C-alpha cells in the first residue's frame, strides 16, 4: 500500500486545509518538527482514513476548528496496482444552524476507485466502506499498526507481550482459521459419533424387546399362516367370478326383453297419431302453393290501406278548413277593436304631455319658495351682525379718547432723565476723586516718615564712617611705626661699628634700635607677632572703614531718592483740585441716583400708555372694517330676498294651483292597460291567420295523396288477381286460409319429416328386438343377485385374512432385518467413532504429556518463521551481537504453545527476555520484528503487498552509531518499500534529504515538503 496524497482539513493542529503530496518525496522520507507540532498527526490521519480510528487515540477534530468548519481526512493511495481514494469525516456534535442546542452528525465515509482518469464511487455506507478497505489493504486495524504503521511507543508492546497476549494477534495475522475449524469440527463430530452410538444402542434394545424371545419361530409360523390364507383367498375368488359371470348373462337376457317391449310401445304410439299427421301434410302442401302468390296479394292489401288512409286525411283537412272558416268573424271584430284602442292611446298621449308641463312648473315653484326662505334668513343674520359691530366700535372709540387725554410730554421726561443720569455720573466721579486724594495724602505721609528714618540712618552712617576713618588712620600709624621699629631693629642688629649706617650713613651707632640684642631679638619675635596683630588690626580697620563708607553712601542714596520722590508727590498734590470729603461726595451721589430713578419710572409709564393707545387704534380700525362688511352683507341679503320673491311669484303663475303628480300617475296606468290589451288582441289575430294558412295547405296535400293512392290500388289489384290465378286458388279468401307463416311452415315441414323418420326407425327397432329375444327365456334376476352378494362377502373375508397374515409376516421379518442393520451400524460406528474421538483429542491438545493443539502448533511454527526473519534483521542492525529466538520451555501446561521471545546476546552467550533490553535496543528489536512479520505475511498465499512502513519516533533513543546502523539496515532491507520516519532527531535531517517539515505556530501548524 503506497500513499499518494493526503488532505487534512481542520485535523489535529492543522487549521484549515493542508495537503501533502507523498509522490514528491523519495522512498525514504522524514517527518520532522518540534515536539507537538503535528508529526504523529499525519500518520494518525492515515490510520483514521483507513480504519476510522486514530492510532494515538487522540481526537481527529482540531481544537482550533469552529462548528462551521469542515473536518475531514482525504487519502489517495495505491494498493496492488489499483488506486483508491477514501474520505472520512468524523462524528461531531455541532451547534444547530437554526435554533438552540446541538445536533449529532454521524461519521461519514466515502470510497472511490480510479478508472482511466476519473474517480468512480465505490461505496458510501460506513460499514460497507470499512469492510471494503480492510479487504483492499488486507490487514485489520490491529494488524496495520503492528506491521505497517509502528506508532510511537506501541511497537515495543508487541515485543514485550507474553504468549497469552500475543496469541490473539497472531491468530488474526496468520491463517490458522482452518486449523481451528478442523479441530472444532473434529470435536463436534466425535461428540456426534458418541451420541449416535448411544442412540443406536437404545434402538437396538427396543427392537430386541419388540421382537420377543424367539423371533425366528414366530417368523416361520407367520409364513405358514400366510400360505393358507392365500389359498383360501384364491378359492373364494374363483367362486365370486362364477357368480359374477352368471349374473352378467341374466342381465343381458333381461335387457333384451325390455327392449322388445319398448319397441312395441313406440310403434303403437306412432299409429295413434297417423290421421293427424296426414291432415298436417295436406295443409303443408297447400301452404307451399300459397307462398307464390303472397307477395302480390300483400301488395294489394297495402294499396288498399293506403287509399283508406288518404281518404281519412282528406276528410281531416276539410274539417280543419271548416273550423277555420267558422272563426273568421271573430277575427274581424278583433280588428275593429284594435282600431279603437289605437285612437284611445293617441288621446292619452296628448293629455300626458300637458300634464308634464304643469309638473315642471310646479317644481319650479317649489324651488323658488325655498330660495326665498333662505334669503330671508340671511337678511336677518346680516342685520344682527351689523348691530353688534357698531356697538363694539363705539366702545373702542370711547376708550381711545380716554387714553389720549393723558398724554404727557415725553420729550421733557427724557430730558429730565438725561440730566439725572449726568448728575449721578458726576457724583460718582466726585466720590472717586475724594478716595484718591485720601490715598495720596496717606502715601505722602508714609514717604515723609521713611525719609526721616533714612536721614537719621545716614547721619549714623556718616558718624560711624568718621570713627572708622580715624581708627584706620591710627591703625595705619601703628603699623607703620611697628614696621619702622622692626626695620630699625633689623638694621640695628646689622650695625657694626665703623660701618656706615644704611640710613644716615654715620659710622657711629650710639643708640641702635633695640640695643639689648637679646631683648631686641625677643622683642622682634614678639614684635613680629605683634606686627601681625597690628597688621591684622589694620586690615580689620580698613575693612570696617570701607563698609562704613558703603553704608553711608547707600544711606545717602536712599535718602536722596526718597526726597526726590517726596518732592514729586508733593508737587502732584499741589496740582490736585480741592475736593470734597468722601462722605460728602457719597451723599451727593446717593441724591443724584434717586433723581435718576424717578426719571426712569416716569419714562416707563409714558411708554406703556402710548402702547395702549396704539393698540386701541388698531382695534378700532378692525372693528370699523367689520362694521362696513356687515352693512354690505345686509344690503346684499335684501337684494336676494326681493329677487327670490319675484321668482316665486313667477313660478306660481304657471303651476296651476295644485300638484299635478297624481294625475300623471293615473294617466300612466290607464295607458299601460290599454296597450296591454292591444298587444293581446294582435297576437290572437296573428294566430288565427296562421291556422288558416295551415288548413288550406293540408287540404291540398290530402287530396293529392288520395289521388295517388287510387291509382296505385288499381294496379295492385290487377297484379293480385293474376297471381291468384297462377297459384290455383279460386279466391283470395281461399288463399288467405292456406297461407302459413314462415316459421309455421318450417315447423310443419320438420314435423312431417320427423314423423316419417320415426316410423321407419320404429319398424327397424321392432324387428331387431324380436330377433334378439328369439330363443332366450326370461331370467330370474333376483335370485341371481342374492347369489352374487353371498359370493362377494365370502371373498372379502378371505382377503382380509390374507392381508393380516401378510402384515404379520412382514413385520416380523422387517424387525429382524432392522435389528441386524442396527447391529452392523453400531459395529462400523465403533471403529470410526473411536478414530474421531482420538483425532479430536489430538487436534485439541487433549493428549497426555505434550498438551499442544493443532492451531497453536501452526501458530507456533508461523511465529518461529517470523522470529527467524526478525532475527536476521536484528543481527544486521546490532552488528551481529543480538539474535532473536522463540523462548523454549513454555510449551507445557494447558495447551499453550510457546510464543514468548527472548534475545540472545553473543557477548554473554546467554538469552534474556526481550523486556530486559534497553530502550534503543528494544526499538531495533521491534523494527526487526515488524519487518519479520511483514516478510512472512507477504509470502503467505494471497499475501497483501506491504509496500510501506512508517515508524513514529524511537530513533531518539539510539546513539549515533546505532542510529547509523539502523538507518542503513532499514535502507538495505526495505527492498521496494517506502519507509517514512517521524523523528525530531536533528542528525536525521541531514541524513534524509526527503522531508516533511512540520512547523508549529500559535494558530495551528503548517507543512512543508522539502526534497
Amino acid at each position: 500500500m503506497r500513499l499518494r496524497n493526503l488532505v487534512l482539513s481542520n485535523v489535529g493542529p492543522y487549521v484549515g486545509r493542508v495537503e501533502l503530496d507523498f509522490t514528491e518525496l523519495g522512498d525514504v522520507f522524514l517527518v520532522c518538527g518540534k515536539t507537538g507540532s503535528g508529526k504523529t498527526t499525519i500518520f494518525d490521519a492515515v490510520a483514521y482514513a483507513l480504519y476510522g480510528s486514530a492510532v494515538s487515540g487522540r481526537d481527529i477534530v482540531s481544537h482550533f476548528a469552529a462548528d462551521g468548519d469542515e473536518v475531514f481526512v482525504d487519502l489517495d493511495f495505491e494498493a496492488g496496482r489499483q488506486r483508491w481514494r477514501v474520505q472520512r469525516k468524523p462524528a461531531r456534535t455541532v451547534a444547530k444552524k437554526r435554533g438552540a442546542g446541538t445536533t449529532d452528525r454521524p461519521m461519514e465515509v466515502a470510497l472511490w476507485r480510479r478508472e482511466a482518469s476519473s474517480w468512480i464511487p465505490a461505496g458510501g455506507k460506513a460499514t460497507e466502506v470499512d469492510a471494503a478497505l480492510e479487504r483492499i489493504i488486507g490487514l485489520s486495524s490491529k494488524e496495520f499498526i503492528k506491521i505497517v504503521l509502528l506508532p510511537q511507543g506501541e511497537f515495543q508492546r508487541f515485543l514485550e507481550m507474553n504468549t497469552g497476549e500475543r496469541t490473539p494477534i497472531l491468530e488474526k495475522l496468520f491463517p490458522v482459521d482452518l486449523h481451528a475449524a478442523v479441530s472444532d469440527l473434529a470435536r463436534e463430530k466425535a461428540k456426534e459419533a458418541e451420541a449416535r452410538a448411544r442412540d443406536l444402542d437404545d434402538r437396538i434394545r427396543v427392537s430386541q424387546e419388540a421382537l420377543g424371545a424367539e423371533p425366528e419361530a414366530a417368523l416361520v409360523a407367520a409364513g405358514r399362516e400366510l400360505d393358507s390364507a392365500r389359498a383360501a383367498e384364491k378359492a373364494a375368488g374363483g367362486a365370486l367370478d362364477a357368480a359374477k359371470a352368471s349374473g352378467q348373462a341374466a342381465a343381458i337376457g333381461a335387457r333384451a326383453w325390455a327392449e322388445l317391449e319398448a319397441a312395441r310401445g313406440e310403434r303403437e304410439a306412432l299409429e295413434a297419431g297417423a290421421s293427424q299427421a296426414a291432415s298436417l301434410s295436406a295443409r303443408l302442401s297447400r301452404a307451399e302453393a300459397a307462398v307464390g302468390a303472397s307477395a302480390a296479394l300483400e301488395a294489394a292489401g297495402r294499396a288498399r290501406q293506403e287509399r283508406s288512409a288518404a281518404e281519412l286525411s282528406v276528410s281531416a283537412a276539410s274539417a280543419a278548413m271548416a273550423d277555420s272558416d267558422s272563426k273568421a268573424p271573430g277575427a274581424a271584430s278583433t280588428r275593429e277593436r284594435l282600431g279603437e284602442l289605437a285612437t284611445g292611446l293617441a288621446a292619452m298621449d296628448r293629455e300626458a304631455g300637458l300634464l308634464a308641463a304643469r309638473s315642471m312648473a310646479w317644481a319650479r315653484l317649489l324651488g323658488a319658495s325655498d330660495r326665498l326662505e333662505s334669503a330671508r334668513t340671511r337678511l336677518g343674520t346680516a342685520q344682527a351682525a351689523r348691530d353688534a359691530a357698531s356697538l363694539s366700535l363705539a366702545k373702542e372709540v370711547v376708550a381711545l379718547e380716554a387714553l389720549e387725554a393723558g398724554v404727557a410730554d415725553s420729550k421733557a421726561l427724557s430730558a429730565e432723565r438725561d440730566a439725572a443720569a449726568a448728575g449721578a455720573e458726576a457724583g460718582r466721579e466726585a466720590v472717586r476723586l475724594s478716595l484718591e486724594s485720601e490715598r495720596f495724602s496717606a502715601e505722602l505721609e508714609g514717604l515723609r516718615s521713611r525719609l526721616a528714618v533714612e536721614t537719621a540712618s545716614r547721619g549714623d552712617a556718616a558718624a560711624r564712617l568718621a570713627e572708622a576713618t580715624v581708627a584706620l588712620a591710627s591703625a595705619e600709624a601703628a603699623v607703620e611705626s611697628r614696621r619702622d621699629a622692626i626695620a630699625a631693629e633689623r638694621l640695628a642688629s646689622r650695625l657694626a661699628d665703623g660701618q656706615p649706617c644704611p640710613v644716615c650713613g654715620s659710622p657711629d651707632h650710639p643708640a641702635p634700635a633695640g640695643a639689648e640684642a637679646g631683648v631686641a631679638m625677643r622683642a622682634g619675635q614678639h614684635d613680629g607677632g605683634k606686627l601681625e596683630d597690628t597688621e591684622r588690626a589694620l586690615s580689620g580697620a580698613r575693612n570696617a572703614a570701607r563698609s562704613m563708607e558703603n553704608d553711608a553712601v547707600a544711606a545717602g542714596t536712599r535718602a536722596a531718592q526718597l526726597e526726590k520722590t517726596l518732592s514729586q508727590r508733593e508737587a502732584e498734590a499741589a496740582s490736585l483740585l480741592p475736593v470734597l470729603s468722601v462722605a460728602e461726595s457719597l451723599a451727593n451721589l446717593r441724591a443724584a441716583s434717586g433723581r435718576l430713578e424717578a426719571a426712569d419710572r416716569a419714562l416707563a409709564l409714558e411708554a406703556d400708555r402710548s402702547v395702549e393707545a396704539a393698540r386701541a387704534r388698531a382695534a378700532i380700525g378692525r372693528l370699523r372694517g367689520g362694521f362696513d362688511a356687515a352693512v354690505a352683507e345686509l344690503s346684499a341679503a335684501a337684494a336676494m330676498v326681493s329677487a327670490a320673491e319675484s321668482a316665486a311669484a313667477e313660478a306660481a303663475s304657471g303651476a296651476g294651483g295644485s300638484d299635478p303628480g297624481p294625475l300623471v300617475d293615473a294617466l300612466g296606468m290607464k295607458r299601460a292597460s290599454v296597450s296591454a290589451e292591444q298587444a293581446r288582441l294582435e297576437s290572437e289575430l296573428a294566430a288565427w291567420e296562421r291556422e288558416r294558412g295551415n288548413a288550406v295547405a293540408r287540404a291540398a296535400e290530402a287530396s293529392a295523396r288520395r289521388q295517388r293512392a287510387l291509382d296505385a290500388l288499381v294496379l295492385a289489384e290487377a297484379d293480385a288477381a293474376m297471381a291468384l290465378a297462377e297459384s290455383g286458388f279460386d279466391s283470395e279468401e281461399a288463399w288467405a286460409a292456406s297461407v302459413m307463416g314462415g316459421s309455421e311452415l318450417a315447423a310443419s315441414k320438420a314435423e312431417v319429416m320427423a314423423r316419417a323418420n320415426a316410423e321407419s326407425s320404429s319398424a327397424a327397432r321392432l324387428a331387431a328386438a324380436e330377433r334378439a329375444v328369439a330363443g332366450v327365456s326370461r331370467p330370474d334376476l333376483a335370485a341371481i343377485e342374492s347369489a352374487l352378494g353371498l359370493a362377494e362377502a365370502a371373498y372379502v373375508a378371505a382377503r382380509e385374512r390374507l392381508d393380516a397374515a401378510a402384515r404379520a409376516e412382514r413385520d416380523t421379518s422387517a424387525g429382524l432385518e432392522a435389528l441386524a442393520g442396527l447391529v452392523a451400524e453400531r459395529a462400523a460406528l465403533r471403529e470410526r467413532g473411536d478414530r474421531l474421538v482420538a483425532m479430536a483429542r489430538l487436534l485439541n491438545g487433549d493428549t497426555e504429556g505434550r498438551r499442544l493443539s493443532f492451531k497453536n502448533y501452526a501458530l507456533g511454527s508461523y511465529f518461529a518463521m517470523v522470529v527467524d526473519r526478525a532475527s536476521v534483521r536484528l543481527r544486521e542492525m546490532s552488528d551481529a551481537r543480538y539474535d532473536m529466538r522463540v523462548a523454549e520451555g513454555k510449551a507445557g501446561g494447558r495447551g499453550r504453545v510457546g510464543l514468548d521471545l527472548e534475545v540472545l546476546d553473543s557477548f554473554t552467550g546467554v538469552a534474556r527476555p526481550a523486556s530486559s533490553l534497553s530502550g534503543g535496543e528494544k526499538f531495533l528489536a521491534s523494527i526487526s520484528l515488524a519487518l519479520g512479520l511483514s516478510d512472512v505475511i507477504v509470502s503467505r498465499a494471497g499475501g497483501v503487498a506491504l509496500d510501506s512502513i512508517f515508524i513514529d519516533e524511537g530513533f531518539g533513543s539510539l546513539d549515533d552509531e546505532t542510529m547509523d546502523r539502523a538507518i542503513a539496515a532499514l535502507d538495505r532491507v526495505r527492498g521496494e518499500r517506502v519507509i517514512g520516519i517521524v523523528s525530531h532527531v536533528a542528525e536525521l535531517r541531514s541524513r534524509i534529504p526527503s522531508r516533511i517539515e512540520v512547523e508549529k505556530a500559535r494558530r495551528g501548524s503548517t507543512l512543508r515538503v522539502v526534497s
Partner: protein
Amino acid sequence: MRIFHLADLHLGKSIHERDLLEDQRHALDAVLCAVGAESPACVLIAGDVFDRSVPTAEAVTLFGSFAAAIKAIDPGIAIVVIPGNHDSAARLGFMATVLAQAGVHIASDPESCDSPVVVENGGDRTRFWLLPFLTPGAFHRESPVPDLSIAGQAGLFDEPEPILRSQADMFAEAMRRIGEAMSGERTRDQTRELDSGTRAADVLVCHAFARGGLASESERVFLGTAELVDGTAFDAFDYVALGHLHRPQAVGSRGRYPGSILAYSFSESDGERGFLSVELSPGSSLAEFRPISPLRRMVRFHGSYDRVLSDPALSVYEGDYVEAVLDDADAVLNPMEALRRRFPNILSLRQAAFERTEVRGVSGAAGRSEALSIADEFAAFHREVREVDPEQADAALFAELCEEASREAP
C-alpha cells in the same frame, strides 16, 4: 606541482561505541610528517571531513589544529576542502571567505563550482574545481531539463522535474557548468601561454560514488537518491580527486580515491589505508599511495574460544581493535568478559553457533514459505506430538474433516 590528496577523514567517528579520535589524531600526525618531508603546494581533502553534520567539539578542534599545523610548517601551502555527505556543508563552510584570504579554501556552495581555486607554486598553476557533495535541489534549474523521463514518454503529461534529484543528474549539470567555465579559462590560458609558456592544470575535486568503484562496509549509503555518477566526464580534467569510497582505488585514467585514512570496519582490515601524493602537470598526473600505519589496527580473528583466548600467535594483536568470530559448535557463555582481559580493545564478538541456527532457520523458513499444505502440517504436528507418522486412515479422516470445514467456512 605536488599535492596531497586525502579524503574521508570521518573525524569524530566511533565504532562499536569506541571513540577513534586518538587514532585519527595519530593518522593526521603522520600526514603532517609527510607534509614536512615532501612540501606539497596544496593539501586537498575531498569530503567527509567529519563523521556527523554536527561533529563533537574534540573533532572540530582536531581538524583546526591539523590545519594550523600545516600552516605552521609552511604558510604558503594551500588547504582545499569540500564537504562530503557526512558533513554539514553550511557548518563546514562557515567563514569560508575569511579563511580563503588565509589560504584555506572551503567550498560549500555547489553554485560556485564554476569559480575555481587557483594555486600557484614556482611557476606552476593549477586550477582546482571544487564540487561539494550534491544534495537534491543543489542547483536551481537553469537549463531546461529535457523530459526524457519514462513518465514523460508514456504521455501522462506530468511536468518535467524542476528540481534535479539524482546524483547522476546533478553531477551532469555540474559538469556542464564547470566544463563551460573551464573552456573559458583554457582559452584565456592560450593567450597567456604565448607569454609565459606553461598552461594550468585542471583538477576536479568531488565527493561521489563513481561508476566502476568498489564499495566497502563502512561507507554510508545515500538515502533516497540514485547513487552512481558517470565517470566519463573525468577525462576532461588532468586529475580528478575523488572522495567517498573508503578503499583506495582508481576510476578510469584520471580519477583516484585515496580511501579513508583509517580502516573503519572490520571487513576492511585486510587493506591498507592512507593518502595520495600526486605530482601534477598539465596533461598528466602521477599519484603515489602513502600508507598510514594506524595506532591500532582493525583485526578480525576466527577460531574457537579457547584458541582465541590462549593462542600466543595472537599476542601481537593484543593492543589492536579486535573482532572475534568464535566458531565453537555450542554457544559460549560470557566470552566477552574473558576476551576483554586479553584484548582490552576488543570491540565485537560473533558466535558462529548462533549464525548456524540462523542459517537453518532461514532455509527452514524458505522451505516453509512455499505454502505448506495443511495436510503436511498435520503430519508434522502428528510427528511432533505422537512421535510417529499418522496412519493412512487418520490422514484420510483428517482430509475429510478439512474439506468439510473449508466448505462450511464462508
